């Protein structure tokens, strides 16, 4: 890989990190850090995945993988709810909103102007489906000492947005 390509990869990744940080900090009122490296992945931790399909202009998918205790902390923090008030439906709602906002903000990196884009409705479930550590399009974050992940899939995200390349 050339020096230019490495620099572009770094800029691209940094931009993705900034978008995820600003989006989720606004929702959760909690500080989000980019993890320096992948942490040890504990298979036994209960996790949720939230996904949203990008349908236009190119196909893609954006996923968030988040441990249950983190979703619970956000619910308690933002909605002033006790643990026993948080049902499965509300966990799904919280994650659905989070992936919606992250996806909308990420798409504005690629489609900043007059051109439209289309994305589907969020889907939320348990389990991760993907081996995060072997996925090159995964970024690990840290919220309150708990790791979570953003994963970008598909043609839509195979190249950095044009405005990053121009910088």
């Amino acid at each position, binding site marked *: 890989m050339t020096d230019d390509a490495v620099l572009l990869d770094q800029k691209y990744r940094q931009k993705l990190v900034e978008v995820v940080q600003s989006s989720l900090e606004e929702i959760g009122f909690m500080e989000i850090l980019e993890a320096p490296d992948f942490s040890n992945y504990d298979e036994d931790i209960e996790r949720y995945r939230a996904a949203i399909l990008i349908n236009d202009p190119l196909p893609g998918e954006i996923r968030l993988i988040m441990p249950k205790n983190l979703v619970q902390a956000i619910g308690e923090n933002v909605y002033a709810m006790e643990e026993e008030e948080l049902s499965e439906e509300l966990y799904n709602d919280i994650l659905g909103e989070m992936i919606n906002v992250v*996806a909308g903000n990420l798409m504005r990196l690629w489609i900043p102007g*007059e051109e*439209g884009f289309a994305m589907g*409705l969020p889907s939320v479930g348990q389990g991760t489906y993907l081996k995060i550590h072997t996925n090159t399009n995964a970024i690990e974050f840290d919220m309150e000492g708990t790791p979570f992940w953003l994963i970008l899939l598909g043609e839509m995200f195979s190249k950095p947005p044009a405005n990053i390349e121009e910088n």
Partner: protein
Amino acid sequence: MTQQILIVDDSKMARMYVHRCLEMSGLEEAEFLEAENGKIALSIMEEQEIHIVVSDVNMPEMDGKTMLKWMRSNEKLREIPVIFITSVNNMAKIKELVMLGARSVLSKPVSPSSLIPVIEKLMGKGEK
């Protein structure tokens, strides 16, 4: 007269959050009604006197854009102001919704500081 505000979003948490933001935007005396999608919202609007609709765009069954089109083609509902709160908020989407008659298009997550000027403008217009 008590203002009746209809919040439309398929997410219960989002409805709760918007409700709280609206109360903090000077509408603490208002009565709030909720709908999970555009279809349910339209049936509520037919039965009740709604003063402002605050709606998501992407929803199952009937999305916000289709709901707005139905409202504009209905004599009883066409003058109700609609504020959209959406994550799909680029210039193309804003233009499209405004062309259809949306009063304002705000980004998710919404905050009281982004809602206050919109609500104040709508309330001021209502008093004239």
